[in-house]
């Protein structure tokens, strides 16, 4: 018998703007030792489904409108709050998406680990601090925290993202649950860390025979670890079945669309570097930041070398991909080239003119020739300006348009980025993430720049939207003859879009070359690790890949 049997689950959100059917008639089951993956884009209801099982949704506005969720024969949806606490403490545990925000910053990780044991609702299951600590330290060892005894008393901010997620996993396992819900456990992590965490979850599942529900938007991640897959969209199930069936014998159109949207394989367009003349020349560029955290201010440690002696050229018309994990300095390099971050040394030349050393006023004429697209379209647009105002501001500021003909220019931009002109008077919050990124791109190309630096422009987007935005970027680069530096942590995306690639790690460019050459024969160990860590949306290949790590 399945350990969890959900049938006909309905969760509606009662908001001021009406009822949103977040989860509508969803049924599934999981067995012990089995992994069920729930796949969907943002807003598909995959997280809401799982949170409703543990009563973790804010009510109101959420309301469970129907269905049952039988855990070992007992309905989770109708149990009392005391029974629910028992389930949370004994039976079901959750690993949340963002390890940066899911741990309490005010308490040591040790304290947070042992809480479920020392405050157990069942009096005769309460353990002493000493016992609980012993167990927690052993578990920290098991999930790969080095020097766990000493780390027990550290605060979350003293851990890196990957380490925090390991702590979260230990925290979920400490009560020895029978069902583990993993809500996008690797989405906030770097690709090499993701590979390690996935492997860890898989290993722990095998040794403990727990049932796992694995929520993800990434079909590549799911391919290697799931036994069954549930594809959700708009609160309903689109397709469900064994992993191989879903990937190799796809039935549903939406699943097909999801699979097709995964950027895979080499770039299809021809290499664009038409001229040898460099548009950007960067020589020995250094950007250092004062080290705030380090206590021993030795000469060596006083600065964080975000960009350390980087030299590169970007030819006119080229798309250069810059790849690195978080903290590699890739964003700082992009900002330093645009003179948006104060540089410490070296020089940046833009079509022969040295930009380093110019003051803000002298930079103005150059600013219109180089623009930036930012990662988060939710944060990078001014929420109090309409699209029209956002798009017309750079045009008016740089004198490209006048008050009289501005409307025509802005309408043209809306056409360029594929937005309807009827939406000109709307504010950013009225748009979806993909539409907002289109606005951000429109703002960047408004001044007819020669260079665009795109900093993770698709990382915050769903995979189907990501594919559309990538195609839009390629199309605009072609049409406006742009030169582009495309910064990303996602190697597949970079491969899909770039002519040439640079790999950055700890402030230094460690390897560069033509995209396909580099993919075929990476020279540096770090590059090899990066490439090996990319999840593949092919169950057989992905299982093999995970096993080989």
């Amino acid at each position: 018998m399945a350990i969890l049997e959900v049938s006909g689950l309905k969760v509606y959100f009662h908001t001021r703007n009406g009822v949103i059917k977040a989860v509508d008639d969803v049924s599934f089951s999981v067995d012990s030792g089995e992994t069920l993956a729930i796949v969907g884009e943002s807003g598909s209801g995959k997280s809401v489904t799982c949170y409703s099982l543990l009563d973790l949704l804010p009510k109101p506005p959420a309301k469970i409108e129907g269905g049952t969720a039988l855990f070992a024969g007992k309905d989770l949806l109708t149990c009392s709050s005391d029974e629910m606490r028992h389930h949370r403490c004994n039976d079901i545990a959750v690993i949340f998406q963002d390890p940066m925000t899911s741990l309490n910053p005010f308490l040591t990780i040790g304290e947070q680990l042992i809480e479920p044991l020392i405050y157990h609702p069942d009096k005769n299951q309460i353990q002493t601090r000493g016992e609980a600590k012993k167990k927690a330290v052993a578990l920290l060892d098991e999930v790969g925290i080095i020097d766990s005894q000493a780390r027990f008393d550290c605060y979350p901010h003293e851990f890196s993202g990957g380490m925090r997620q390991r702590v979260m996993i230990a925290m979920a396992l400490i009560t020895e649950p029978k069902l583990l819900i993993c809500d996008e456990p690797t989405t906030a992590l770097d690709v090499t860390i993701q590979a390690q965490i996935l492997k860890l979850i898989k290993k722990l599942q095998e040794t403990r025979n727990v049932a796992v529900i694995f929520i993800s938007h990434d079909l590549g991640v799911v391919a290697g670890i799931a036994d069954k897959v549930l594809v959700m969209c708009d609160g309903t199930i689109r397709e469900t079945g064994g992993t191989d069936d879903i990937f190799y014998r796809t039935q549903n159109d939406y699943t097909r669309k999801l699979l097709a949207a995964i950027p895979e394989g080499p770039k299809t367009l021809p290499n664009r570097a038409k001229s040898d003349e460099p548009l950007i020349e960067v020589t020995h560029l250094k950007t250092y930041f004062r080290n705030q955290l380090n206590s021993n201010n030795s000469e060596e440690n006083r600065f964080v070398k975000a960009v350390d002696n980087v030299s590169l050229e970007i030819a006119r018309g080229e798309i250069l991909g810059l790849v690195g994990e978080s903290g590699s300095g890739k964003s700082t390099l992009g900002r330093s080239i645009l003179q948006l971050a104060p540089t410490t040394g070296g020089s940046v030349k833009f079509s022969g003119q040295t930009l380093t050393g110019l003051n803000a006023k002298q930079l103005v004429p150059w600013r219109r020739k180089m623009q930036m697209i930012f990662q988060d379209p939710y944060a990078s647009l001014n929420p109090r300006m309409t699209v029209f105002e956002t798009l017309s501001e750079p045009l008016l500021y740089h004198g490209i348009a006048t008050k009289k003909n501005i409307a025509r220019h802005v309408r043209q931009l809306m056409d360029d980025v594929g937005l309807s002109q009827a939406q000109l008077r709307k504010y950013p919050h009225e748009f979806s993430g993909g539409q907002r990124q289109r606005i951000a791109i429109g703002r960047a190309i408004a001044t007819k720049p020669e260079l665009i630096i795109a900093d993770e422009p698709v990382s915050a987007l769903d995979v189907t939207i990501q594919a559309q935005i990538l195609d839009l970027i390629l199309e605009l680069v072609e049409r406006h003859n742009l030169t582009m530096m495309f910064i990303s942590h996602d190697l597949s995306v970079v491969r899909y879009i770039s002519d040439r690639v640079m790999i950055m790690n700890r402030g230094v460019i460690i390897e560069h070359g033509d995209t396909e050459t580099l993919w075929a024969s990476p020279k540096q160990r770090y590059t090899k690790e990066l490439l090996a860590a990319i999840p593949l949306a092919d169950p057989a290949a992905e299982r093999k890949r995970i096993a080989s790590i």
Partner: protein
Amino acid sequence: MYRFAISRLLQAIPVLLMVITVTFFLVHSAPGGPFSADKAVPPEVIKALEEQYNLNQPVWQQYLSYLGDVIQGDFGPSFKYPGRTVNELITAGLPITAELAFYAMLVALGVGITAGVGASMRPNTMQDYLPMTGAMIGICMPSFLLGPLLVLIFGIHLDWLPVSGWGDIPGDKILPSITLGTGYAAYIARLSRGGMLEVLSQDYIRTARAKGLSERLIIVKHALRGGLIPVVAFLGPAFAGLLAGSFVVETIFQIPGLGRFYVQAAFNRDYTLILGMTIFLSTLIILFNLLSDMLAIWLNPKLRQEIRGTN
């Protein structure tokens, strides 16, 4: 932490100097002088008095000699309380005002945090609306209205509590403390509600719930520390405000504290007393702000380590 405290104290020196200078010249430029109201006094007496208190010298010279005295901790003699120094007057009034402020703070924290945290636990229900409406009224209600109102109800109609005095009859400290504390309680209620709502919406609260902790433990252990940081940051200015703002309450309830000296000094053009009180209160405000900042840092492990790191 020491280095942080010391650097903040060093920064306080120019601030205090500014306070002294501005107050000194403002006071001296106000029309009238300490002895001009007493019409019956013959001019030679006034002249003698002015000589005695150095008021016949040019203002800048008075300023410099006053500054010299203040640096040595001497606020000079009071002009209006003959034979008593400003230091003596402050020492006499301070314990009473400090006690009043302390009780008022207890009222403010107790009522404010209870109401705010309670409201945050069930937002947009009666448990939220009722205390928040109360808080709104508390903020709007000036103490010169609230004080007499309380006296009318509890002192006269119900005859439960004494209507004035301080430490003479048992229970006479209750009404002034409540009068002074109410506004702050209201403000703290709103601050703690806001802080708690912010924290309760954090991911780590969801994590705590998912672990099966009781709702009480989640509030007390996981939410309070972060949720009350705005309140802690407000404590410094609040304490200073209580000390400096107590004069209304002290007047209503006939309490011989600092506040009454302050007001009388201003009416009487008692230069040294005004200046002395201003400098003393400014120093307290700076100190309390520093203390509450240090407390806020100490509560946040990350900040605590950063500060330690810079030492």
